[in-house]
């Protein structure tokens, strides 16, 4: 799977796509492959305040629990309800339908410290 050029990435394998003052956040294809079969996703509720680099929620595969870290600070304005009933979508479409949350950015300058698609792929060694 390719890593979209218009996303920004973290070394913890999250992505963010910013449109206006809001960013859509997900986990990368690499992350879903490492996790294996995803069976449960735990996310904050709309209205929750999140901080860059702090825990946003967690993703559980059959085998293990992994924390998800927020790429940016701000307020959660939407949560993907699809994942409550169909967590396996994270294995199928991690860069699309299986986005996790939308965050209204409070510190857009934080985006500058995130990786480009090319940098992320270099980081993965791909």
């Amino acid at each position: 799977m390719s890593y979209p050029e218009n996303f920004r990435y973290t070394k913890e394998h999250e992505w963010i796509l910013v449109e206006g003052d809001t960013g859509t956040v997900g986990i990368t294809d690499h992350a879903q492959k490492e996790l294996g079969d995803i069976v449960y996703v735990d996310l904050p509720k709309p209205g929750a305040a999140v901080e860059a680099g702090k825990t946003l929620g967690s993703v559980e595969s059959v085998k293990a629990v992994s924390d998800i870290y927020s790429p940016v600070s701000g307020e959660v304005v939407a949560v993907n309800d699809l994942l409550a009933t169909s967590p396996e979508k994270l294995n199928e479409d991690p860069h699309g339908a299986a986005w996790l949350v939308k965050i209204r950015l409070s510190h857009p300058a934080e985006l500058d410290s995130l990786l480009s698609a090319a940098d992320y792929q270099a980081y993965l060694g791909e």
Partner: protein
Amino acid sequence: MLKQIPLGDVHRALGAKMVDFGGWEMPLQYTGILDEHRAVRTSVGLFDVSHMGEIEIRGPQALDLVQWVSSNNAAKLADGQIHYSGLLYEHGGFVDDILVHRVSAGHYFLCVNASNQDKDYEHIASQNRWDCAVENSGSRYAQLAVQGPRALETLQKLTPVALAEIRYYRFRDGQVCGRDARIARTGYTGEDGFEVYLAPGHAAEVWNALMEAGREFGIKPCGLGARNTLRMEAGMALYGHEIDASITPLEAGLEWIVKWDKGDFCGRARLEKQKAEGIRRRLIGFEMRGRGIGRDGYEVRAGGQPAGWVTSGGPSPTLNKNIGMCYLPAELAQPGTAIEVVVRDQPVEAVTVPIPFYRRPK
């Protein structure tokens, strides 16, 4: 440096994700745990479990040593018969859980847990008052497990041994792919199947032949991930989880491997004392009722108070529920008790249920 099983290169070529398991580099999964789990429940899966240890006890008084170190009654075993047993410390806790195979009156073959094999060997050797030859023979054997409803048909293509004649928990020595092999009708999945012990040098050849023989049934190579979900559904104990040095068989729901009528054995006095005084904690199954997955080591509460801990927990692919096993005070360890499992600081509702969670259709 991780210890290498003989088939490491075969697994990597199949795309396995390898992990450190008790010092061994082992396949965790190939196509995915759910896929592999389903293959074993519905057709056939192949596991490389060469990390498992073997200890052999030989001599005219081999039975005396086996009887002393293990809690089940090995005097009842016929040649070619196997039973599950406990290797216990004097204080009644588990050194290990083992399979005892009687090869002959003067030769017992024990299959033991990978990470315990040296400890088990030292323990057995230290108890050897009967001048038996005790051999730590793990390096002489690879072990492949063929498991699932199509396991017999798959393995039968490769051996002249009439597999249907081997009853559950029996074994025969014969040949697979023309190579000497010990073929046991045992497993750790809750399905029918066979565990094949053979020389490490022949493991790759037999593995490849089994994959080919099972192709028409959709055989899948299976890793430790599926092995764990399968054994958990079947309610089978895993050393370091349901049992360890601090747990006795009476607490673990394994009194059936403690044979009180067999005479003295290492740990017996303490088990008798525990039984007389009353068993304070017991293993019980649970199902999550609230949203969340109880996992190994999580705290269990009853009535808002800490009451026990999860020994193994996770999703059950067959039942499509989140299940687990836990220790609770004996009075709470009855099916139908409302409990809470603490998932990342949040108590989540669960209810106790009997073990096992899954029994294969007869």
